[in-house]
């Protein structure tokens, strides 16, 4: 069974149709990069997968859950689907450790001692053990983003979504975040990532999906797709991004 199954999704904002029939299937352990011009619907698609956006037609199944409006079922789905945002969105009033421990404690009733061990473990995975008691405001953007990834990991998700997680970072800080993501990919995590880092998509993602005007315009194994664009749109996009 695929980890993520998207079937003919349609999504409108008012009269603007943003997703015009998108279908995509992601196997467990697969890493899929979503690329495309600004406004092509990448974020919207990603946000549909964890229910942050609703859609008008189509069907989504993630980690064995069918997408639904029912709050209880939606929460069950979200326990298995992590998302990391461009703007980190850490909780500024909580320390790094508290940010990470909060959700396991309150949504899964993980005991305090266990949550603490879990937090230390995921924080070590992103290389920030020494920041356990820091507040987000005192961390660099790259460090905040790694904490955000750790916070998601603490929920032991089956699928991870990343929406341009390095776009807000200074160039010298993107590397440390990409490294963490690459490690996750190698560790077998199922990942969907919207990215502008073409190199990362080419080398780390098994599959790359090119979105254009609310549709999947082209998709295939990353190396093939980048080497041999089949459409002029992708070809132009890759050329424009290469400089």
């Amino acid at each position, binding site marked *: 069974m695929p980890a993520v199954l998207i079937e003919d999704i349609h999504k409108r904002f008012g009269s603007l149709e943003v997703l015009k029939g998108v279908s995509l299937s992601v196997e467990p352990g697969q890493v899929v990069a979503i690329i495309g011009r600004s406004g092509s619907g990448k974020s919207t698609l990603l946000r549909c997968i964890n229910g*942050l956006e609703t859609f008008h037609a189509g069907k989504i199944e993630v980690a064995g859950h069918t997408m639904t409006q029912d709050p209880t079922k939606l929460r069950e789905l*979200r326990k298995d689907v992590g998302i990391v*945002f461009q703007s980190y*969105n850490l*909780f500024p*009033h909580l320390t790094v450790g508290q940010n990470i421990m909060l959700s396991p404690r309150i*949504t899964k009733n993980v005991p305090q001692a266990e949550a603490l061990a879990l937090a230390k473990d995921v924080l070590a995975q992103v290389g920030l053990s020494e920041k356990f008691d820091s507040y987000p405001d005192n961390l660099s953007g790259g460090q905040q983003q790694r904490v955000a990834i750790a916070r998601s990991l603490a929920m032991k998700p089956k699928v991870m979504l990343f929406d341009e997680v390095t776009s807000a970072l200074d160039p010298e800080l993107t590397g440390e975040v990409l490294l963490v993501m690459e490690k996750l990919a190698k560790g077998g995590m199922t990942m969907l990532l919207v990215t502008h880092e073409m190199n990362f998509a080419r080398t780390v993602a098994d599959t790359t999906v090119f979105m254009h005007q609310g549709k999947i315009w082209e998709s295939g194994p990353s190396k093939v797709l980048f080497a041999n664009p089949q459409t002029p749109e992708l070809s132009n996009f890759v050329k424009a991004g290469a400089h």
Partner: protein
Amino acid sequence: MQTFGWPEALFIFRSAGWTLALTAIAFFIGSILGGAFAIMRLSRVRWLRRFASGYILVIQSIPVLMVLFMSYYGLSALGIELPPFLAASASLSIYVSAYLAEIWRGSIESVPRQQWEASASLAHTTAQTYRYVILPQAVRISLPPTVGFLVQLVKNTSIVQVVGFVDLMRAGMLVNNATYQAFQIFTLVGAIYFAICFPLSRLSRHLEKVMNASRSH
């Protein structure tokens, strides 16, 4: 005729205690009501939202004096005769609730939308999102305007005498009726109000500076 001396001054000072007590109670009850109205105002249920908006708009668009009269005579029309202190507290609480509801709604709304999304994505319920993510941040944001409003409340307690309660202001008036030394009396009364309000005003402004500093780094 009496003259304005130590016993009178002492009487006025003691009545300031009632002003403080009244402020505290009205603020406490008003906070609970105001919190409820703020949440209703932000509720997904449309009629709750409308009801809260209407309540806030009406209370903020009529004189505090009318809030006092309306709740006092409203209660007695319902056959409820409250002792003056309770009547004053109840009326002022209504006034407080509308203003705090509006201040707190603004504070809750100024927590970035992304915080709601991050919280929802972590499988929190709406109640958990409020409890652990939104309210702790909203409380910080609301602190300066809330303390600022406290100053308005202290000043507005000066008219509760209309429901028969003897507070600082009423004490001043009673002494004035006996001594006719209005200038000295109301200087003292004003000085006591000032001594309560000025530190609160400063605190509010200080908190605002601290917030602005922490927001802009």
